[in-house]
């Protein structure tokens, strides 16, 4: 009898827990991105997990580096050196940005243009990676107190990283451009053909909706298109053309794009603040974010 009663109470417990889960799923699902559970969860994630992540990752860095090293063993030393160099270059690029921006502003004023592409940035370090196997994002150690807002574009010296998704006062998460939820209005650098680059997780991102007449050159640069009111500033390097193909029955061309940024080794990123001003018309202006060797090109 006691055994029976115990089995029954177990079943009752399980049924009520399952009901509770289902109710949570429903409430969360109906609430959408701005539901009460979602905002509560993101606040909790960023205020509890963010600092803990940062603290524990400091302590456990050797351990996690060891595990991470298992995946790309052998290249760690050179990677470290490369990242240091990157960091250095990023700092100089930021300094250059200011000068270039000032030049740009002066030129624009001269031609009586009313806007300037004021690129201001906040440098942040990546303290955590996505915890789910179905999401591609990173946590960075800068938040609203440093001027980071949801939706701002994030870059490194190599190219476009993604955009800020959730923000708390000192931490934010950045959705990478390889996340399946991400799409970037982009353009082939040489022909100017526009398309939409959609992330596909671990697979190479694909640039869709390209005009079928477009001439595509292998290893050609793909840059952001930066439409007025868009998320990303124009001309930021996104990646390189890997190959093209036509989907059966599709009227447009699809291009596989190899991202310029190595997402497995992100350590420092730059959040671009100051894109709140309307982005000027998408003339193929050289972006300060592009690599150093391309920088001087279309300026004169």
């Amino acid at each position: 009898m006691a055994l029976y009663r115990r089995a029954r109470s177990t079943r009752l417990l399980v049924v009520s827990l399952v009901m509770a889960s289902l109710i949570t799923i429903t409430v969360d699902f109906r609430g959408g991105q701005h539901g009460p559970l979602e905002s509560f969860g993101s606040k909790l994630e960023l205020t509890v997990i963010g600092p803990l992540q940062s603290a524990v990752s400091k302590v456990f860095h050797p351990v996690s580096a060891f595990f991470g090293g298992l995946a790309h063993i052998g290249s760690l030393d050179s990677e470290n050196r490369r990242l240091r160099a990157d960091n250095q270059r990023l700092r100089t690029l930021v300094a250059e940005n200011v000068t270039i921006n000032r030049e740009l502003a002066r030129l624009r004023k001269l031609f009586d243009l009313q806007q300037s592409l004021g690129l201001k940035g906040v440098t942040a370090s990546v303290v955590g990676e996505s915890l789910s196997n179905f999401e591609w994002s990173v946590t960075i150690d800068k938040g609203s107190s440093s001027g980071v807002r949801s939706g701002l574009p994030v870059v490194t010296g190599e190219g476009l990283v993604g955009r800020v998704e959730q923000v708390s006062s000192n931490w934010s998460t950045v959705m990478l451009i390889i996340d399946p939820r991400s799409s970037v209005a982009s353009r082939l650098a040489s022909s100017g053909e526009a398309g939409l680059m959609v992330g596909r997780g671990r697979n190479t991102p694909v640039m869709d909706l390209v005009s079928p007449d477009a001439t595509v050159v292998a290893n050609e640069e793909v840059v952001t298109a930066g439409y007025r009111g868009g998320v990303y500033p124009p001309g930021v390097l996104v990646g390189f053309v890997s190959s093209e193909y036509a989907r059966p029955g599709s009227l447009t061309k699809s291009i596989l794009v190899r991202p310029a940024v190595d997402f497995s080794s992100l350590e420092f990123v730059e959040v671009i603040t100051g894109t709140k001003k309307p982005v000027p018309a998408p003339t193929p202006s050289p972006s300060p974010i592009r690599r150093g060797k391309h920088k001087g090109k279309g300026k004169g």
Partner: protein
Amino acid sequence: MRRAISWAAVVVTALLLQSTVFARFELGGAKPDLVFLATIVLAFLEGPSSGALAGFVGGMAEDFLLNQPKGITALTLTLVGYSVGALRQYITTPSPLLPVGVVASASAAGIVFYGLVSFLLGQLEVGFGYLVRVAFLTGVYNAVLTPFLFPVIRRVAESSRATRVFRW
């Protein structure tokens, strides 16, 4: 009360390790899932109702702290905890490899279930082949970690078992 605290400690530790040390560990596209592992081991040691409860609490904590779609992990782990606890009563082999096998298969089954629920809700952004691969690899990684973590969780569970009076 002591039980609650020690279980909470197990779950929080699992979540923390998951989000820091093991967040960077990624081989072949998958990571070990320590909250699954902790739930399965607790259910294995303590039976179906404790397993279901630990799974529910751990799953909710994971959903909210890691800001995933709320409730799906909780649902998955409730059922995983209950099933492991219930099936455990029918297995009598004394083999020391039993926990490893249970963790491997229950983790993989749990991930597949999670994927199916996400799919039904229209939130699964990856293909089924990828899902199966993640489930398989997560099962393997959790199995590899079991021999190290099982004794730890068993000690925590056993040290708190003396105060049975306060059982929920």
